[in-house]
């Protein structure tokens, strides 16, 4: 079946979209987080068809949770709990009911003004979660590690960057990688008490912001970062200095990327230039057998021939801010105040 794209206008610029995972059935509900509006909110939506037999289903709002400032990131802490960061420096943990999705989101924990410039407010730009822990970063250059089970702040690394941090990723339970507005990437070992990165390197020579970081699902030492310039950098953390390959991808900033949860060879990216692409990244890692039959995986240098890229949707005139895929369905949210559901995606 061909790809089926269906857009719905929702009257709010969407900054984040997330499918809500279901146990045994196909997911029907999703979260959206809006930004750049007078009042922003986290909304829960469901896809439903207007008539019994109609093929097309439309999103309908089930509940709304308004926040101050913009929603900057939404990540799952577990199946029903999400951590939400906002541009006024707050981090909240919210729970959606597993059965009754239309009941309002429940506040579990709130860390208000977690990031701040003293009395002035400061944006919490992103967060990442790892087995109940939450790492948050902000424009103040701080990194906070929150305990999502107890609602406490387990660690604060103050002023670890003189510029503002824009991307964060938990690599291991004790290791976090951050990227700042000038493309400086630093790795922090949370067990070390002084504020010194265990490694630091540059995203690209252009001093543009790192916008998102992910790790390869089966090769966790392979890290990918998206840049404000639209390029994609790949590192092998076992030899981190300069990226092993820097791919010129989108024509403007990469906003979010995700490896397909079922197929690690598929990478999805979306950009400020309004594109959503699907990459076949099989060639990103190579496996060879050594003389003693030992399997080694390595990242080849500048191997552009093996990358195949497809566009999943006609280019929008406005930035696509977020994407999330679940099996054959991809959800994306854009600055033209619309949410798109792409169906029949082959992975």
């Amino acid at each position, binding site marked *: 079946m061909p790809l089926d794209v269906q857009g719905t206008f929702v009257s709010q610029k969407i900054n984040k979209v997330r499918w809500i995972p279901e146990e045994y059935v196909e997911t029907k509900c999703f979260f959206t987080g809006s930004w750049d509006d007078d009042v922003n909110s986290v909304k829960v939506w469901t896809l439903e068809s207007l008539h019994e037999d109609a093929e097309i289903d439309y999103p309908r709002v089930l509940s709304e949770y308004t926040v101050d400032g913009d929603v900057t990131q939404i990540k799952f802490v577990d199946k029903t709990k999400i951590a939400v960061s906002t541009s006024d420096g707050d981090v909240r943990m919210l729970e959606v009911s597993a059965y009754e999705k239309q009941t309002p989101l429940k506040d579990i924990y709130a860390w208000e003004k977690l990031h701040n410039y003293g009395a002035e407010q400061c944006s919490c730009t992103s967060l990442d979660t790892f087995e109940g822990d939450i790492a948050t970063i902000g424009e103040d*250059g701080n990194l906070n590690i929150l305990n999502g089970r107890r609602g406490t702040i387990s660690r604060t690394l103050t002023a670890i960057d003189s510029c503002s941090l824009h991307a964060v990723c938990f690599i291991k339970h004790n290791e976090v990688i951050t990227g700042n507005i000038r493309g400086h990437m630093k790795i922090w070992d949370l067990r070390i008490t002084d504020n010194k990165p265990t490694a630091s390197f540059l995203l690209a020579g252009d001093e543009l912001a790192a916008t998102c970081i992910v790790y390869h699902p089966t090769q966790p030492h392979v890290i990918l970062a998206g840049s404000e310039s639209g390029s994609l950098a790949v590192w092998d953390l076992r030899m981190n200095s300069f990226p092993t390959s820097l791919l010129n991808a989108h024509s403007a900033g990469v906003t979010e990327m995700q490896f397909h949860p079922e197929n690690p060879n598929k990478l999805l990216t979306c950009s400020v230039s309004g594109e959503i692409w699907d990459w076949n990244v099989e060639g990103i890692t190579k496996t060879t057998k050594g003389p003693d039959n030992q399997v080694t995986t390595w990242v080849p240098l500048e191997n552009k021939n093996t990358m195949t890229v497809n566009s999943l949707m006609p280019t929008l005139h406005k930035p696509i801010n977020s994407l999330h895929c679940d099996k054959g369905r991809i959800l994306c949210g854009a600055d033209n105040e619309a949410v798109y559901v792409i169906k029949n995606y082959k992975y």
Partner: protein
Amino acid sequence: MNIGPNVFSSASRTTLEKNVKTFVLPDKCFENRVACTWRCGNKFTIYPRSQTVSKTPVDTTGDRIVNICQDILLFTPILRKLVNESNGTYLSLQKAAETAKTSDNQVEFLKLSRQYRSIIRVCIESLQEAAAKESDGIEKNSLMSYITIFYSIECIWHLCEILYVDSIPGDIVLPFLLEWIRFHFPCHEQVAAQVLEACEQGSEDHPQYWDTVIGMIVQGRVDVARALLKLHSLADINEFKLVDNALRTMPVYSVYGGISTGEFTITWKHWQAECRSKLSGRSLASQPKLELIMRLIIGEYSAFESIRDNYVSWFDLLGGWVLYTAPWTRRRELGAAAAACAALRSAQPPAARRLLDHLVRALLDGDLHQVIHEIQQISDNGWFATHLTDILYQCGKLKIFDKHQTNVTARLRDSLVLEYGCLLMEHKSLWSVGLSYLATCPPEGLRRAELMLERVPVHTNAKALRVIAEAKKYGLSGVVQSVCRAAGARRLAAGRAGAALGWALRGRCGRLCARAADAALRGYCGYSGYSGGRPLPARDLLLSAGPELLRADRLLFLGKYCDFHRLYKNREFKKAAKLLVSLITSKIAPEYFWETLLLDTLPLLESEEAVFSSSDTFEIMLCLELRSKELTGEKADLLRLALARNLARTCLEDVEDE
């Protein structure tokens, strides 16, 4: 305090200028002296202002500042969908127009025009849905009025599409016109469907039977009318057969019919003469309704006049009139038919649907200038006027001349687009949509965009980066710089020298670089002493900044000083000492930093191995004496001692230059 127009107690029109509205302000505190000033966009502020200087304190407790802004319909959530969706279509249209310069692209234009209409229909649907849910009377009323507005917009757009965008074979407009009427004025549709569904003889008992039959005749749906007539209980009598025969034999003109217009006219005239002779033979006298049908199909003016009152407007009859008088009418000849229909005497007051009346008349007359003038009166904040004018302009169908006979079409289109773009720029979220409109009218649009973009409030880096990305897209480098400057200045005020420096470098702003570097140096001086003190601000940034350090002298100094710290930390003392001496001798250090700079020599002077050569030591001594104001007392004595000891060391064996 914001006041929408609905708060004002009365709105009256003066007779002199009908476009002037008078609002009475609710507050009494403005009775004496008030002044008014524009804020950005469509907002203005009224505030009390006293011009007389009085020494006695004036009671100002009752004074209030009133912000007045226009209530913008398009900013309601439902209509924001329309704004965003139509923006996509508008931008596609601009692209299509670009390609149309080299090749004919009429089909693409038609597709986009239909897309616009479907957007309007979706909007009407969601408005209807909202109206059905709404329980508040006033809200419901306003929703209903929006629905009416968008219904008429769609209706006019459709007619425009037929007359100007679509390419009609042979210019024979009749089938399209009939379709338009059926689509927008489906008054008898339901009854006809009901009666035909029931399919029983004697359907004339239905109270609206005859109205429906005549309605179908007037809409040109002869087959339906005949089917309905067959259901009459007297369908077998001669009169019915006669009418049925007349309807059946009616010649239908088609461009692809293979006969010329002249030939068709002869057949048509012949058929009409036959019908007329049957009428004059009074063979239908016993059935007045059938007689009326016959009179209609021969295009008798009085017959049309007699049924005029059954319809709300004259356009319901327009299709029938054209069909039964001149089915070969071309697009540009519709004006006469419209004039004839509009002149049909009606018992109803002429005020009803006046705007739509004017619009349809002007459209059929081909007076697009008038059409655009009229649609600007529709209270949709210019959405319709902008998009319709643009599509007509891009299709090349719009030619408007001013009184000096110069072509002002492009100017008209640009001014509408600019106006609409500026309106959207004011909205917190829709600014990017507005920007994309402004960008399609160079060069004026970009100049306006520049002014407005600089005023978009930027509170977070994410927004700043987005504004910068948009500005870069349209080549507005001035905006990029000013946004960076503003963001940098805000970080500086928050005491974040590093972040400020980052923004200054991004915006390539030398002055801000210098200020941020200054802040960093001052911040560092505040913590006297190097070891154990706070590390130099923005150290991580400076080490990778490279040639960007040349942006400002102060920044260069900071960069070099930071480099000194790095060398010192890496225990490369000789290199560190050399750098430090060059920093001291170059005299680019700011006054307040001399103390730190001179004291930094202390640990190096005291190091086990001599690192300063004797000439370096002399240089430092000279500086110390020249700058005796900056470094005094115990510290100075300590430094003097260290320098003297180093001099003694180097007298025996001087430090070799590497």
